[in-house]
């Protein structure tokens, strides 16, 4: 259940309270987020929409512990991340967050296999265990036959699949997707959204996604609009709902 009025209970997976983010630019201050509240439960698929500069990516960065808020708190699975030290936050990110970026952000000198394996290098898994995990994930994202290909040898859609594989391989608490289809054609975008839906429906993943595309946003369970630093719920009908789940 997604709420933006701050009325969610303490059992929400993600709980945001009074979140402010202010940037200083050219001597002035830009208040991007203004006392934002949000509650997201496990297995929710939320899309954030809004005009450019409305603070969508800023919100995602704050939720992912990539940036620190000016005020307010973010609590994920009982951990308040807003007051964590840099070192703790890094460890927390490795354990709880999977990132999917618009430009895929794969390491060009690593193969699909090696890119997906990256988050597992931070775990205590053996080489054989890592291989097993990566192969399973590449199978889930439909690239089992491309594991030794470099990013330059893959299409945009395939690169994004590798990026999704990298995001889910360590089984994070939630996924943050920043315009995951923003650089793809319609068919590839559709395939990527199908994959994300599959992760939510079949594997019970919690996904928070930023998008400009209303068609893509409709695939989410809930769309929230970010305007004037606050979130508002969309009235439009929504797509995916959590269904039968598998463990990856």
């Amino acid at each position: 259940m997604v709420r933006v009025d701050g009325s969610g209970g303490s059992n929400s997976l993600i709980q945001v309270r009074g979140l402010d983010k202010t940037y200083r630019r050219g001597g002035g201050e830009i208040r991007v987020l203004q006392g934002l509240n949000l509650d997201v439960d496990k297995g929710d698929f939320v899309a954030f929409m809004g005009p450019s500069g409305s603070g969508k990516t800023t919100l995602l960065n704050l939720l992912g512990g990539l940036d620190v808020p000016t005020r307010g708190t973010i609590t994920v699975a009982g951990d308040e991340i807003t007051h964590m030290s840099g070192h703790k936050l890094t460890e927390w990110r490795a354990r709880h967050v999977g990132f999917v970026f618009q430009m895929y952000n794969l390491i060009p000198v690593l193969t699909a296999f090696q890119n997906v394996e990256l988050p597992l290098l931070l775990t205590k898994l053996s080489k054989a265990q890592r291989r097993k995990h990566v192969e399973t994930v590449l199978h889930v994202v439909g690239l089992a036959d491309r594991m030794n290909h470099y990013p330059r040898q893959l299409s945009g859609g395939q690169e994004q699949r590798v990026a999704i594989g990298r995001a889910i391989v360590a089984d994070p608490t939630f996924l943050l997707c920043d315009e995951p289809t923003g650089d793809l054609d319609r068919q590839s975008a559709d395939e990527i959204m199908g994959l994300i839906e599959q992760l939510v429906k079949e594997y019970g993943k919690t996904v928070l996604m930023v998008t400009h595309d209303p068609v893509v946003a409709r695939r989410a369970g809930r769309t929230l609009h970010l305007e004037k630093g606050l979130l508002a719920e969309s009235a439009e009908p929504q797509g995916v709902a959590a269904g039968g789940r598998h463990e990856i």
Partner: protein
Amino acid sequence: MKFSGLIFANLFRKKIRLLLTIGSFAVALFLFAFLAVVNDVFSRGADIASADRLFVINRTSIINPIPLADRDKMLRIPGVKMVTHDNWFGGIYQDEKNFFPQFVIDPENQRQVFPELMVSDEEWKNFLKDRQGAIVGARTAERFGWKIGDRIPLKTTIWGSGNWEFNIEGLYHGKRPQDDETQFWFQWDYFQEHVPDAQKGQVGWYIVRVDSPDDAVRVAKSIDAEFANSPYETKTETESAFAASWVKQFGNIRFLIVTIGTVVFFTLLLVTGNTMAISVRERTPELAVLKALGFSDRTVLFFVLAESLVIALVGGLLGLLLAVLAMPVLTRALSGLLPQLVLAPSVFAFGFATALAVGLASGFWPGLGAMRLQIVNGLRRV
């Protein structure tokens, strides 16, 4: 090492740049090794000098002679064990470029005063029997293809005129690799027969062996005091001081070499530092992604340092190994000009350590930048 795949993948990202950077390390280390070896050659005399040997020269200059008669006075000074003497011959073998040092020696004490330069007893006996006999250092014999029994003409440039003929009766070898094996020795008596009358009975310098190295300074002072206010005042020094002052005549070789070496390494630091800075800057978004995935600031610093260390390690080893392989070739090429070139293990170790230090230093600042990179700022550069 689970991060090695990532480190090596990044290293091989730009192969030509990698090769050129490794190449600059290799060239710098080769040059360093060569300079260190040349420095070693010039300072070797002092380093390997025997503590119980004193060199006595004319106080005015080494080119001014000292009478042979002074030998007996020296022998009477307490603490003096034995005395021998040398003259510089300065002959030319076929062509001036075929330089090698030739000494007129006193056969009586030569082997006792210089025990590290070894001649077999049989060859030495033959040498003593033949007034025109000569003993040649193994390197010089090898250089000119000489063997025992060969007759060698040397054209004199100092002692009268014409060719002097010698028979090679033996070869000497140094006990240590650093010992000079380029000298050519012949007998005092033969020399005395041929020099103009005005130069007879004059020696170039004396070499005194003392009873105890601890007594060397006192004996040196006593010798100089003995000949003070005489027509042939002396200047007596330990062998190491004598060798050091001899090298000083060429200028401050050590300073020159250290300066060149420092410039080489500083340039290498700038080149490698620049390469690493470019390499890190090109990868800013990737480093930001790694951090977003949970790689710590220290791990990112480690990646950058590891890359620069690998470059330094490979380039440094390559340069030093090239130097090891090149030493025999350079020794042959510089035959006669410099004694045996030896790349000492300490030079190898110092060069290697310096290469690693340069590698660490060149990767440190770019690594620090990568470590401090704000993820959000890094991701914006995609």
